């Protein structure tokens, strides 16, 4: 059964550094998403991506964040200058034209 994969599983970075979180969605998915879950809090929507452009983004997704799908397989989330409050588990999700989303195992980002 195809799965969404995410790398790395854990990323530790210093405040102010750039990080790139990578996701390989299921090959026939068309819509892609990033969510995050700060420890002890609910899962929050960050951004949705379709047809090589952002279709919706949350208030959290400010100018420090960007997404791209450079090669038709990887889907990346970049944080340009990390802050302590960016520490969270980041989940990549995807779906076909149906409405259920499938998620990867997550990347735990720790900003020190």
């Amino acid at each position, binding site marked *: 059964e195809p799965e969404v994969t995410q790398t790395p599983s854990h990323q530790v970075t210093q405040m102010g550094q750039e990080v790139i979180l990578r996701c390989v969605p299921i090959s026939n998915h068309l819509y892609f998403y990033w969510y995050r879950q700060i420890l002890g809090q*609910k899962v929050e929507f960050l951004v949705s991506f379709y047809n090589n452009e952002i279709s*919706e983004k949350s208030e959290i997704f400010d100018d420090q964040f960007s997404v791209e799908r450079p090669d038709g397989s990887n889907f990346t989330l970049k944080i340009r200058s990390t802050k302590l409050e960016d520490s969270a588990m980041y989940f990549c*999700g995807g779906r076909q034209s149906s409405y259920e989303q499938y998620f990867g195992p997550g990347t735990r980002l720790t900003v020190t």
Partner: protein
Amino acid sequence: AQSVTQLDSQVPVFEEAPVELRCNYSSSVSVYLFWYVQYPNQGLQLLLKYLSGSTLVKGINGFEAEFNKSQTSFHLRKPSVHISDTAEYFCAVSRLDSSYKLIFGSGTRLLVRP
């Protein structure tokens, strides 16, 4: 804006007992409804979904949920739980007029005791 409320942060239950995890939502437009499970140190796995049709939906691992439009609820049930069902359960909604992003509840930790 829509919101999802999971009133119970933790539900302890003995093995083989039935369980119900509650979920209520509010939305000014129609939504799709989902339950996801997160096992320790793992990602989010889809348990079941309600899109339309029969209000009782069955999912994986013996779970089922009932959509009640008048009460805006989507409670998750299992008639007999196992130790392996210990996990965090998230209710989520997706608006029909958006990018179908998911809005999650705060989660309910199901703790199954022997």
